[in-house]
């Protein structure tokens, strides 16, 4: 048995925090819990976690700021806990660096599934070449590395990296949002397409010379996305 994954719970309601800790411990995770964003950053730099669970409504530093601060420090997968799915909160949270979200009141099984999807290793892609080059970039799926030809690494999160790998390995074929949701996040047909859109937007700012006029990650109207070298 491998070392259990460490999950940092950032939640100000003590009862929710305790019950989540109990439930997730039952699933075999090691839990670290804090009640505020400030504490979360402190704890994280002392004991980096494998995944952070951040409530958006926190006293003091709010969840968005907490996500941004964590993201500045690390590529740790972040799941935000939000009140509503149909507000700008979700998109704002994703743009602040979150990888996924759950809505309160959530079912622990659902949360467990989201956590597992983010923690699993990058899907091995058999047909894909060892190094995929596009523009002046090189993607090395097996090493989990995205770098410029001159060797400087482009920092991206696990989710961004996986998304890029999926697009790269489909060899210029269009992937629909549903396919990407399924392969990267483990969602079914009814997953939230905004997850894909926000991550694509973030990826573009990292790899496109001009994110407003993308040359590599193209939108195919009404169908999905594709990567062109």
């Amino acid at each position, binding site marked *: 048995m491998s070392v259990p994954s460490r999950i940092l719970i950032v939640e100000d309601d003590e*009862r*929710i925090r305790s019950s989540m800790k109990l439930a997730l411990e039952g699933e075999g995770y090691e839990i670290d819990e804090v009640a505020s964003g400030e504490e979360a950053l402190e704890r994280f730099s002392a004991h980096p976690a494998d995944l952070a669970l951040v409530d958006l409504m926190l006293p003091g530093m709010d969840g968005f700021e907490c996500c941004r601060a964590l993201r500045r420090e690390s590529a740790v997968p972040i799941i935000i806990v939000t009140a509503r799915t149909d507000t700008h909160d979700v998109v704002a949270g994703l743009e602040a660096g979150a990888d996924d979200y759950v809505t309160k009141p959530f079912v622990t099984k659902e949360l467990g599934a989201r956590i597992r999807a983010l923690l699993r290793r990058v899907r091995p892609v058999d047909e894909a070449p060892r190094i995929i080059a596009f523009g002046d970039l090189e993607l090395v799926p097996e090493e989990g590395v995205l770098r410029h030809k001159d060797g400087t690494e482009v920092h991206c999160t696990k989710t961004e990296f996986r998304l890029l790998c999926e697009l790269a390995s489909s060899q210029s074929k269009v992937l629909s949002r549903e396919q990407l949701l399924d392969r990267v996040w483990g969602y079914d047909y009814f997953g939230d*397409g905004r997850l894909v859109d926000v991550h694509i*937007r973030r990826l573009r700012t990292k790899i496109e010379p001009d994110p*407003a*006029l993308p040359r590599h990650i193209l*939108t195919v109207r009404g169908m999905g996305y594709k990567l062109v070298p």
Partner: protein
Amino acid sequence: MFALGALVLSVSMGALSYFTTRHILVDQRESAAVSDAFVNATYVSQHLAATANIDETLTTANKVTQYSHSFLEERGTWYRGTLQVTQDAIPASLRSMVITGGIAASQTYSLHGTPQIAVGVPIKSIHGAYFEIFDISSLGHTLNVLELALVVLVVVITALGAAFGRWASGRSLHPLTSVSRAAVAIAGGDLGTRLASTAGDPDLAALTSSFNRMVDQLQERIEREARFTSDVSHELRSPLTTLAASLEVLESQSESLTPQARRALELLAADVRRFQRMVGDLLEISRSDSGSAEISLEEVDPGELVRRAVAAAQRTLPIDTAPPHVEVDPEVHGTHLWVDKRRFERIMSNLLENASLYGGGATAVRVSLGNGSGPVHSVRVSVEDAGPGLPPAERMRVFERFYRGHAAFKRGAGTGTGLGLALVAEHVRLHGGKVWAEEADSGGAKFTIELPGQPAEAAEDEELVGGNGPA
């Protein structure tokens, strides 16, 4: 209305002045005729005392007054100062009244269509009587001119009245029209509607400000109510999250519990989940009520959408629920729908859950084309069950919140949230579609939703529709 009033008024005023004038004129003419006749009678009686030439006397008398004919009766013999008419032109009643009665009298009458005044004056000195007939048709002409003038006046006044009335009523009813328009808008749900300020008019300013105050209060109450529902649901979510998480911990260790405790845990779990769904539904509905619901539309293939939604819904239903037969009309292929997938999934799962709770499970889900032309068609999705069906009286009411029909007390009673179909109606409404219940061919209930093929604002799909920027 105003024109009618003007018409009635001017007609009655016209008639009144016509008849008054006519009366006065006729009176005047009559008294003039009477005094003329008396003067002539005096002249005739005096003249006859001096000469015995009756004819000449009468002719002279005849000439004194215009348009008149003089007659003299003396012991049954008639003399006349005119050749145009005979004494028969004098009404018989007047003749006898004057000759036998010995009283002076006058009478207005019509002779061959022309108005006449006949005056008779007894002349005692000769045991006779003097008669004179006055032709007053000139008076008739005057009256005709007057009549014509009045008719023209009536018409003009009516037309003016109508025009004025239109203007005045438009002006005075304008505030009422705007109040009624505002009330219709408010009833239609547009609570932001207010009347424009009418500071210039003190009467209207009072109406406007009290109307606007009323709407302010109404809006505040409605918003407060929606906020309350939303706040309550929000507050319930924290304890529910704790409950649900703790419950799952207990469930994961249920093997170590006694059978009674395990049964109790099952009951607890079932109701906590129902509670969770109910709070979720309440939140969703309060969002709809407060108008803050957001819809994000995507272009999808209707057949695939429905198949996927049925499969997803099936996972939330009891394991022994037989999956319904999904039938997609070949006509539907090639059409596209713009839907919010999350909301559509909820629509289907609520309809299937409803069928499972009250109709013994859904038997068929059909996808077909609705109304439309060319490539733009609405799409209908119907869910049928093999249950007892819905009585016609309940077919509308089932979409009300917490409505419990007769079926709700049978098998599975109390396991729904009571909001499932109300939410279906809300989600469908947000899509600009329709939902209704009817009887299936099998006798069971049939719920049909119809979604428009192309919504007015279809460009909500921010990324995929956004393109790659200017080419």
